[in-house]
């Protein structure tokens, strides 16, 4: 996609803007980003990926977690320009062809979400953790979840969802 260099009315910011090109959920994307714009705002407002949410904008709540070059990162603490050339994954990429993936299904089954505002961040944190290896105890699941904050669920459903997804993903692996 060609970045639209004339896009945006933020005239005060245009002088310090850069073109940011990256891969998002496997698709090449690009847009103009003021240098001070966070990655979260860039994903949400410039690329229209509103599933990444902002809960605190100081790196604690984890609602804005995305996966960048394989690592779970806080997109509120990164600048958009730092993602130039990177491969970024967001919640929008989790359901291939609209079909819920195993972790999303486990969340649904176990009522692991209520208001759903923090859910995207949790899904991305867990996705990154499960790629590193299985999560085999409740305590290990708590550890995986402890970098994000949910105010609705009390986490019980999420702990089950992490364990069940881990068991499913690693069922046939040594």
């Amino acid at each position, binding site marked *: 996609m060609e970045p639209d260099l004339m896009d945006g009315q933020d005239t005060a910011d245009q002088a310090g803007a850069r073109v940011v090109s990256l891969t998002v959920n496997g698709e090449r994307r690009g847009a103009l980003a003021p240098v001070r714009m966070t990655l979260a705002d860039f994903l949400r407002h410039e690329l229209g990926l509103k599933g990444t949410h902002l809960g605190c904008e100081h790196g604690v*709540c984890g609602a804005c977690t995305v996966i960048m070059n394989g690592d779970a990162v806080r997109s509120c603490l990164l600048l958009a320009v730092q993602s130039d050339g990177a491969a970024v994954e967001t919640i929008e990429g989790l359901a291939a062809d609209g079909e819920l993936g195993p972790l999303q299904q486990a969340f649904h089954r176990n009522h692991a979400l209520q208001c759903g505002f923090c859910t995207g961040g949790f899904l991305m944190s867990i996705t990154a953790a499960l790629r590193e290896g299985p999560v085999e105890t409740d305590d290990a699941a708590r550890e995986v979840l402890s970098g994000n904050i949910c105010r609705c669920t009390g986490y*019980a459903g999420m702990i089950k969802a992490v364990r069940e997804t881990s068991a499913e993903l690693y069922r046939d692996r040594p």
Partner: protein
Amino acid sequence: MSAGNAAGAPRPVIGTRVARREDYRLLTGRGKFLDDLEMPADTCEAAFLRSPHGHARILSVNTSAALDVPGVLGVFTGEDILPMMKPLPAKVAHPDLQEIPRLPMALDAVHYAGEPVAVVVATSRYIAEDAADLIEVDYEPLPAISSTAAALAPGAPLAHEGARDNVAVHVTQRAGDPDQAFAAAPHVLSETFTVVRGGGHSMECRAVAARFDTVTGQLVVWDATQAPHYARNALAVLYDMPEDDIRLIAPPDVGGGFGPKAQFYGEEAVIPWVAMQLRKPVKWIEDRRENFISAMMERTQTHRVQVAFDDDGLLIALKDVFEHDQGAYVAGLQVPMITLSTVPGQYKIPNIHTELYSCFTNMVPTSSVRGAGRPQAVAAMERMMDRVAEYLGLDPAEVRRRNLIQPDEFPYKVGLMFRDGSPLTYDSGNYPELLRGTLERLGYDAWRARQAELRGKGRLLGIGIACYVEGCGLGPYEGAKARLTNSGEVLVTLAAAPQGQGYETVYAQIAADAMGLDMSYIKVTTGDTGRIPFGQGTFASRITATAGPAVLRACQELRDRIFATAAVMLKTEGKNFVFRGDRVTLAEDEATGATLKQVTQVANVGKHGITLLRGVRAGLETSSYFAPERAAYASGAHAVVVEVDPETGRTEILKYVIGHDCGTVINPLLVDGQVLGGFAAGIGNALYEEQFYDDTAQPQTTSYLDFSLPSAAEVPPVELFHVQSPSPLNPLGAKGAGEGGTIPAPAAIANAIEDALRPFGARINEMPVTPPKIVGAITGTRGNPGSRQNRSE
């Protein structure tokens, strides 16, 4: 005409674990939160300039530098919005309330750090914040009040210049003859407890957007609120506009509420107003720093509580005099008024005196936060129950058992008034069974033995219990509409707005059973004043018990109307119908029927200019507003085992059991979710969440680096069971489920910690019980078992 149990008719779904309809969009990043809505391309963003002082006069405001910033469309101070500058009324008031106006934005003085002073509208939030920094305000700081103790101190400065004093309201409630009872009682214990409660900390902060349609004259407001009709009504008064010209929509997804979003704020008044002035859509998304300093929270109550009892531990009298921090303005008295009547809880107490001093301070106004004044009341009562047991050398569970209201004593009149204006009358419950079941699941006797054994080895285990009664399902009413749409679907329209409770699922369940129709043909829509004219909002665990019966009745009537239409169409009057799939069929003959589409075609769509079939009533739409006679009362018991590390002050929860009674459980999956989520808030309340203000009323906890919310690592496993005592006050038997996980947690955990520390005779009188308080309690009282209080007056 009844649904019956004919072959092929759907099975009831109330009481079953139906997974949520809302989940798919939320799990795929397609939720409809306010800041995710696709607003018009010319939508501007707003940023507020807020007071840096707890209390100050505003001498001058200069906005010219801000207006010069490229991209800024407007800057508005209090002076600039004078046409709508009216006081925002208190949500719950009292005849004796000292009136201090709460204005949408400050005019000539500020009364808390965080109070809005000006708003900047610009093409982006980044630019709006840049410009807000350039507004020059000349303040003359004044002495600020940063606690109720400071507010009530003799000669204290005033939180508001010109006020009578710092007492917003002083209210006393009495039952029996407490003075005489205390004078004659064999034993009296007294203590002072302080309970700090945090903020709501919904993960989505507050948010408002507005667009004025110059063609129709309609103002559309999107508001991440718990109470859309309440907000719409407030705007209509402020702007002097007919309510139909304001359409206020709570987006389908609101990222948590927990009480603070049920209040009405100045920002909600300012944003639509400036959108009208600028003729541009304007959006304000609160950031977390603003949320810490300007969203309402609950903060601190100090209770001076006294109980009188006999040699067997039977309660004779209760007296609780407490201070409530109302903040800089009275946004509502609901929290302290609830506290006033929640203290007696599950116990038979013939003589009661509760007394409130609600104080003005120079901190952000306080509001309900999940639990809403009940955790403090329960702490006052339940902490004293443990003291009574200790004093008499009795088991704390036994002391409670002896005092419980029995199942055959309902309706039970406590002798006080509840905050809904009706006499405090418990409708139903089974308190002995809640306590018995909770202690059995905890393994109470075995833990007591283990505690004694480990004490010998120097390990500090403690067991805590707390019981509560929760007034819920409050009036005045809640409404619902049901309609057969042109496409043959049943559309249920709720006035109430959800913040994660799963209304689209729960109310489809209730509608399905009311109609005997499969859920898949029912859709639920929520929180839009343009779709249903009257409503109150989601707060006080009230919606299932109010909107639930409204949906039930509206859908029963719609079912009857659909059946009557089908009877005319099929010429089968007087026969019984049932739904089979999307067909209305004779109960006895499934071949005779009509589809919902055919029915709507006849009664709703009609044929232009052709006479309606004789006997058919046009317009298959019903509405119902359910007004409960009075509040319902949910109840529960929590029991917990903790181990305390005396060196670090760390508390580990070894076991936690919740017995919960919210009457009829509509969807066990979602009710468990409510209780477990409330429990996590209770853990935060008991052990972690505490905001600090310094002596000049400067907030010291303004990020999650200073203020701890529980993560998955802090919330222990919990065993939950339900006792179902249906409420006789509504046809579903429902009560509230949103707060029972939270209410008794601080009391139960503090009781357990004090029990663990009993070898030291240490007193835990301040909640949350953070590690420094535990270490302080031990070191302050080590070797001083005489701190036990005997009869004091």
